[in-house]
């Protein structure tokens, strides 16, 4: 069965600095998607970025980028120029590209942004 592990329960970053959140996963599949979701205090789950496993190029969305290492089964999120509004829980998620189409979530990393 697939698993997703986030080993950092909490991280802190100074405003305007860069922070990297870690995520590892385990799967025997070759085709899958990986996601980072943000959950602010409002509880609303918001997609931050997604990565297709068949793409070697790392995904980027403005200040957010990933370091996808398929062989190592690692999918870290880098937030550049951190802003106070980035403070939230961040969840890493995995989804097969076939089969049941279920999403598997990690336990989350709480990011604090210090002014």
């Amino acid at each position, binding site marked *: 069965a697939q698993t997703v592990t*986030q080993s950092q329960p909490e991280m802190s970053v100074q405003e305007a600095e860069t922070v990297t959140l870690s995520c590892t996963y385990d799967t025997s599949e070759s085709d899958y*998607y990986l*996601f980072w979701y943000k959950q602010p205090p*409002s*509880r*609303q*789950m918001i*997609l931050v970025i*997604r990565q*297709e496993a068949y793409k070697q190029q790392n995904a980027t969305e403005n200040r957010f980028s990933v370091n996808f290492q398929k062989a190592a089964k690692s999918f870290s999120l880098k937030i550049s120029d951190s802003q106070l509004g980035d403070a939230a829980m961040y*969840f890493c998620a995995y989804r097969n*590209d076939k089969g*049941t*189409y*279920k*999403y598997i*979530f*990690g*336990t*989350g990393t709480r990011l604090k942004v210090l002014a």
Partner: protein
Amino acid sequence: NAGVTQTPKFRILKIGQSMTLQCAQDMNHNYMYWYRQDPGMGLKLIYYSVGAGITDKGEVPNGYNVSRSTTEDFPLRLELAAPSQTSVYFCASSPSRSGARTDTQYFGPGTRLTVL
């Protein structure tokens, strides 16, 4: 386009009571999901559906039931509420696989349920 809507936003139940959490989406998505999120934890899948009339169990289905009679609606039923079901419940939907930028989950705002 309202996206994914959930009602109610908050609810307090007594042990043994029953209730239905409502979920609706207006994006014509085939896939719908129910998750629970316990304090400080990630999301655990309760049930999911790949289309009207088709549902299947997720990771933690005990104590819950679902139905999917239409594409739009996916209600979650708690039959005999227990304190262990105190949690925040999220409904989500996603389109059929396309590889497009829209191919992800869309979440409702959540329902905070307390069982006393």
